[in-house]
């Protein structure tokens, strides 16, 4: 077998992106949005804008896997519209290969940001956001998740790295006590909420580009 043929880490990102500039620019962290299964980049910017207000710059990434591989996605029937990040019916039980691919792609993207950012994920996107948070990529100052499930990948042991100073907001989710404890054990500040409120203020409390704030 050609073991060497496996590209271990993604060194560049081929994901579709949608960008919306905010009123505050670099004075706030960039919001990197990861949509739910069935979503897409363009519509996700609108959803995130409603949550975070007009202040932050938003960039939404689009998953590459069409929910309907038979059709061009924009014309797919509603049940199969949009894109998914990884295989598997249960967002809490990602299929490992497709999940690893997506995670590596998102990681490759955030590596090139060059300014403080938060991950904002919904459902499948929330699982990606929280798992990538465990890898503490440079520049990550927080994560906001909606409909998060505690992810399980059989046999996987995430790396342990301190998450001091990283703020995690878990919103509108079921039992996330396991992942919540895991994050707190690493030093992250975890806030579990039933519904979104005060996210603009939360974002303002996070570190941003120092030059921009001056």
């Amino acid at each position: 077998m050609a073991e060497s043929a496996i590209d271990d880490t993604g060194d560049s990102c081929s994901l579709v992106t949608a960008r919306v500039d905010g009123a505050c620019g670099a004075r706030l962290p960039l919001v990197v949005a990861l949509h739910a299964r069935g979503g897409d980049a363009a519509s996700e910017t609108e959803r995130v804008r409603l949550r975070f207000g007009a202040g932050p710059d938003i960039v939404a990434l689009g998953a590459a896997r069409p929910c309907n591989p038979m059709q061009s996605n924009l014309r797919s029937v509603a049940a199969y519209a949009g894109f998914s990040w990884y295989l598997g019916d249960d967002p809490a039980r990602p299929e490992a290969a497709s999940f690893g691919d997506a995670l590596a792609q998102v990681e490759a993207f955030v590596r090139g940001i060059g300014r403080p950012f938060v991950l904002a994920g919904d459902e499948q996107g929330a699982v990606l956001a929280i798992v990538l948070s465990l890898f503490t990529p440079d520049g990550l100052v927080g994560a906001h998740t909606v409909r998060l499930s505690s992810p399980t990948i059989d046999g996987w042991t995430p790396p342990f790295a301190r998450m001091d100073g990283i703020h995690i907001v878990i919103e509108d989710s079921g039992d996330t006590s396991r992942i919540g404890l895991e994050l707190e054990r690493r030093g992250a500040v975890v806030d579990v909420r039933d519904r979104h409120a005060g996210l603009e203020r939360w974002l303002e409390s996070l570190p941003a580009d120092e030059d921009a704030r001056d």
Partner: protein
Amino acid sequence: MSTDNRDDSGTGRAGRRVSRREFLRLAGVAAAAAGATTLPGVRDARAEDAPKFDMEVDVVVVGSGAAGSVAAIFAHEAGAKVALVEKALLFGGTTSKSGGVYWIPNNRFLRERGVEGPREQTIAKMARFSYPTRFREGDAPFGLAQHEYDLLAALYDNGPTMVDELERLGALVSMPADKPFGAMPDYFDESVDDKEPIDRRMWSKKPDGSFGLGAEMVRQLKEAIDKRQIPVLMGHRVVAVLRNSHGEVVGVEAEKIDKSTIRIRASRGVIFGSGGFTQNPDLVEQFQPGPVFGGCAVPTNEGDFVYIAAAAGARLGNMSSAWRAQIVLEQALQFSSTPDDVFMPPGDSTILVNRLGRRVVNETANYNERTRIHFAWDPSRHEWINMLLFMIYDQRGAELYGGRFPIPAPGTQAPYVVTGANANELEVAINQRLAKLAPKIGHVQLEENFAGSLSTTVKRFNEFAARGADVDFHRGEKLYDRLWHSHVWSYPNPGTTHALGKTPNPTMHPLDPASRLYAIILASGTLDTNGGPMISALGEVLSTDGKPIPGLYGAGNCISSPTGHYYYGGGGTLGPAMTYAYLAAKSAAAAPVKELD
């Protein structure tokens, strides 16, 4: 989720990089596992040091996609005690991420409408396209070897029964796949006279009456397997078949992800439905006719059955073939299994050119046929001259057709899109991108004065568009070209300022060289390969002497495709896979018990 308590990053803050290899290993990809150097093969079932069997059944099925699942259900229904073994941790194989369409000639929906052609006429058509150099008009077997004809006849004769039986068993409910776009043509060249297409595609029907894709098909089949209490062993890679002293296959040895092994006795037979070898670079390099950069097959499709069958003395066939599809090069380089393929380049002014700036193919030809153009060898330049093709479109195309893969949707950008304000800028940008990709694809650059050649190509294409006739590649001449183009892949976005206009050929509109130009680099890929051991019309794997290897059966992409290199229509992969799985299951379940000695 358990965690590693050590902070081994050395910084106390910055974590490790994501490792795709780690996730691939967890997914069951053998090449990603440390020490995975032993090739699958054959073992003596009675070796002195051989451990006892961990499980004893009549029939072992390897693989959980359409072929494996269908085989397991029918072997069970035939009275066999069955176990299903799957290498990955996710049930369903490549079927689970497919469109889930199955091509079934003479299916009951066609019969009810009275539109299917006669048996011999349909088989002759299949023979003509599968074996174009040997096909002869006249009577069966139409110039084919008898066993080749028998395989095609078996597909025609048994496909309809197979889907009807699945429905009767409550295992899979089918419906015609002519919704929501109406009847669509097969990939046969039968549409030149503009007859109404015979749409032989079927797909699964969801409980609410709507159509299901591959995931729904897998869901129904898995439910049927569970109802029958067929044991399913996930995360078990079959690394060997076990043979007795007569050379009969009597079981399998499977390896778990933790490298421990189990042995399963299969007293009547072992049926492989384990997928092709798209994800095995060595086999691809050895057998495919040119550069293949990736494919949609799940990452565990590493061709294990090729090694096993060869070691068992099987006759291999069709190894240079695949269900082909163009893929976006930069996606292929970043994903272990390409998330999407380019079914048809969207847009009426989109063209594909090679690095010389020349069109090389009918852009609206079906993906399996179109992709083969990547394997053109230029003896003067000593290179695969079409290894990469550049999908060129203009600003109008970007706005009218954005959102049809791979053109990014309005309001979005894709890093794999290269752009320039004119042809000269585009040439520079493409060369820069190619230079960046050189560590992975080798040194490739556009021919000098690509921009000038492209302008000439565009001028000629625009003349064709104005006339409505593509003299070079016959784009849009076939019903397939026009219907798949306008009904599915190139319907325009509303709300742009661009008028569609009325061109004589709806698949062609002049490309505007004065507008901003875009390029996406396409490469050859597969849905999966379709070569491997040859089978009989009973699903038996054939040895090099043409006789069945007792106890060994196969179906799906792991075998030598009985339909050869040709893709008959949507579902041309799954329909035959399910049919030959049905035949293999019936044969294996009825086979005599084989002793271990």
